[in-house]
């Protein structure tokens, strides 16, 4: 897993490439916690290069969603492949998340 962070206006965009599983989830969790602390709570998670996400990834998402909720920020997901989308759907996460297919649309949604 590799993480790429960029800043667009008030929004932090973190792109995740590769796999989110129990081996990589701790690194994702640490990075996102730092991003939220440093940049505020407007976050786009770009998953367009994420191969799959296991329940270890769901735990990170839930934890980040809670932090962002407390900070009254916004979390937007972008670029889900079918496999990531299926895991989010089965676990009940998909219905609770803001998901955009387009990157600029995702950034706009996180800015609102």
């Amino acid at each position, binding site marked *: 897993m590799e993480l790429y962070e960029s800043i667009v206006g008030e929004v932090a965009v973190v792109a995740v490439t590769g796999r989110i*599983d*129990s*081996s990589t989830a701790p690194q994702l969790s640490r990075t996102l916690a730092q991003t939220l602390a440093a940049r505020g709570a407007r976050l786009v998670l770009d998953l367009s290069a994420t191969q799959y996400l296991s329940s270890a990834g*769901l735990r990170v998402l839930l934890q980040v969603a809670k932090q962002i909720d407390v900070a009254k920020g916004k979390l937007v997901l972008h670029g889900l492949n079918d496999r990531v989308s299926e895991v989010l759907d089965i676990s*009940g996460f998909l219905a609770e998340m803001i998901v955009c297919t387009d990157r600029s649309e995702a950034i706009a949604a996180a800015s609102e």
Partner: protein
Amino acid sequence: MPSPDARVETMELIIGNRSEELQRVTQAVDELIARHRLPDPALNMQIALDEVLSNIVNYAYDNGAKHQIRIRLSVYADAIEAEVEDDGPEFDPLSAAEPSSAHGFLERKPGGAGIRVVKRMMSQVAYRRVADCNRLQLRIRFER
């Protein structure tokens, strides 16, 4: 023509009950997928094994002792199968309670949804208690 049930390859791994060991399993599944050019659904085995093995490593043992977990991976003409065996206390993950959706999303406890993901993404799952071990079978059937 070979029967679809014919086993193409079987690989067995023994890992310790530590999270760092899980990557060896991920690698082995990757190798099988590549070597036999398994179609896309086979990759779901990675998601299921990550869930099942991290549960065993994190929750099956409370005495801090070293344990071995045995993973047997089999490739068939039309399926990939994993059999996971641990010597922890009897635990059938398939009959464990699923998280209730009565609470709001943000009030959820982490975890719990994982086993539902496993059940839904596998073509077949089975649990048996065998000789003081938990044996879980996961199978994904695919079309070539």
